[in-house]
């Protein structure tokens, strides 16, 4: 008789005391991964909502990426980039 624990049918060994919470404890890694996935997808949604990546309001704020400065850095880390550029065309609208 090994000491492996089946989730639905717990084998009771006579020589050790088996707490009833062991099936829940064994499921904790599952909760960790599911919770981590939920947190990461929520964080991505927040990033999209707050940054100029997606147009959320077609009538009120179309094309939010056009409202940023030409000198603003959007990347997290950029190599060898001088961000003091000028806007590239005459305003005409």
């Amino acid at each position: 008789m090994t000491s492996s624990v089946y989730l639905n049918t717990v084998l009771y060994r006579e020589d050790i005391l088996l707490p009833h919470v062991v099936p829940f404890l064994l499921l904790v890694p599952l909760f960790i991964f599911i919770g981590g996935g939920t947190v990461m997808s929520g964080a991505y949604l927040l990033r999209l909502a707050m940054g100029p990546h997606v147009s959320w309001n077609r009538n009120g704020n179309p094309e939010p990426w056009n409202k940023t400065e030409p000198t603003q850095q959007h990347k997290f880390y950029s190599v060898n980039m001088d961000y003091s550029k000028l806007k590239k065309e005459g305003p005409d609208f």
Partner: protein
Amino acid sequence: MSDVIEEKIKNYRTAPFDARFPNTNQTRNCFQNYLDFHRCNKALSDKGQDVAPCDWYQRVYKSLCPLSWVAKWDDQIEAGSFPGKI
């Protein structure tokens, strides 16, 4: 102002870096310049001004966009079914 742009168009080599689109995926850059070209044409011709400055946007989108996309969008504009707001 317009001779600055004329100068830029004359010295054009390729699409310059656009801080709005810093990553590898330049799809939106292409589409934005296409839209800007047509909006510029519409706005300047409504005001009765010369549409020559709009050529900058045309050079940029011709540098960036695949030919099939440009052809498809041109056909859509002629047919009146273009999805962008011009």
